[in-house]
């Protein structure tokens, strides 16, 4: 072991992992942070895309936390390896398509690989018993330690006193008496500890920091898998699920409709992969068409596109339709009325 014990902390950007890192730092441990980018992280993307979010801080919370703590942060791209976690979760999904238990085991396993490669001694997480219904329960926390292979090199400082002693405690790298016994869903102990540490600013993402915990997002991912006939995805697929309105007017095609200039600009980057359309007589959204379409489908899509533009009340609207092959075509269509828009189309 190194003379000064070294720990890597899983930094999400939220308060709990920040506190866990601070607790261990204050015990004289050399701490560095690690953050895994799965592609489903809520961080930043909607800020970068949507107009209405441009006023919000664009900071990456994991980086911000690391800077506040004065520690290095390693951000690791795990997009490819993470697919198996989402597609084949051994422990199943939570309320939506969130494979929280498999996810945590995966991340701790990746952290274990990292400490082995970099000569660190143990792993720290901000987990709290009872805080989350799937991955942070008294009976599932040992599963994470075991399945990740981290075993007793995994320390959860915020609830360590309620768990068996770990290697860092036995070896005296950290003092168990100075760890905590937080338990349950209440945030009060964490908020009190933050105050004690003088931490006033921290991110509090509602529903966590992962899109897979979001019902609407999960519906879109499920729809993607059904339309493909199998569970698989590429990074562009899951990024596009974060953007725009998604409507499936017919089983064989879907529309992605930009909601503002920011989203329209973002969708423009995908024009080379999709049939797309936009209004030429009136301002309106850029619309991507995913799936195989015939002229009747394109006319319906053009009428929907017109419905979401400024010509929705006009007698007719001109829509330019650009397919992957052939010249652009101009459709003159009557916008769908509010009553003609079917609720079931919205994914």
């Amino acid at each position, binding site marked *: 072991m190194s003379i000064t014990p070294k720990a890597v902390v899983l930094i999400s950007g939220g308060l709990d992992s920040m506190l866990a890192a601070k607790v261990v730092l204050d015990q004289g441990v050399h701490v560095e942070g690690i953050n895994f980018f799965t592609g489903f992280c809520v961080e*930043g993307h909607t800020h970068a895309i949507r107009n209405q979010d441009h006023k919000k801080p*664009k900071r*990456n919370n994991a980086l911000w936390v690391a800077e506040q703590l*004065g520690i290095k*942060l390693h951000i690791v791209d795990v997009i490819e390896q993470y697919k198996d976690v989402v597609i084949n979760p051994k422990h199943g999904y939570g309320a939506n398509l969130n494979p929280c238990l498999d996810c945590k085991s995966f991340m701790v396993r990746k952290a274990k690989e990292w400490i082995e490669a970099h000569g660190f001694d143990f792993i720290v997480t901000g987990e709290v018993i009872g805080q989350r219904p799937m991955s942070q329960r008294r009976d599932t926390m040992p599963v994470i330690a075991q399945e990740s292979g981290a075993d007793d090199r995994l320390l959860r400082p915020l609830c360590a006193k309620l768990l068996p002693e770990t290697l860092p405690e036995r070896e005296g790298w950290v003092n168990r008496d100075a760890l905590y016994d937080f338990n349950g869903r209440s945030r009060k102990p964490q908020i009190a500890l933050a105050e004690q540490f003088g931490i006033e600013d921290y991110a509090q993402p509602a529903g966590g920091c992962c899109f897979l915990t979001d019902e609407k997002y999960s519906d879109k991912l499920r729809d993607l898998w059904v339309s493909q006939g199998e569970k698989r995805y590429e990074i562009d697929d899951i990024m596009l699920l974060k953007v725009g309105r998604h409507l499936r007017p017919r089983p064989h095609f879907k529309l992605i409709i930009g909601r503002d200039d920011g989203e329209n600009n973002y969708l423009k980057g995908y024009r080379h992969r999709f049939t797309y359309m936009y209004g030429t007589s009136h301002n309106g959204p850029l619309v991507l068409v995913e799936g195989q379409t015939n002229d009747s489908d394109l006319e319906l899509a053009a009428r929907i596109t017109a419905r979401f533009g400024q010509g929705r009340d006009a007698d007719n609207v001109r829509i330019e339709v650009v397919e992957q092959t052939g010249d652009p075509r101009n459709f003159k269509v009557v916008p769908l009325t509010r009553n003609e828009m079917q609720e079931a189309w919205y994914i």
Partner: protein
Amino acid sequence: MSHHKLDATNLLCPMPVIRTQDRVAELASGDILEIHCTDPGALHDIPTWCRINGHRVVGTQQANNEIIVTLRVGS
């Protein structure tokens, strides 16, 4: 000391930071890396990443929806 360029355009946060981090790992202390991005978050995130990892931002430019962050690799 050598000058390098990294194309991180059309990538959203945190990918420009990840690409920067991976590229810097291959460079020597004192090397200059010029990162081209389109995500405005890079203007905040790359300098933060530099501060916490001991590198120095020596310039930022913004023109035609493109952001260029230039850093000097630390020791």
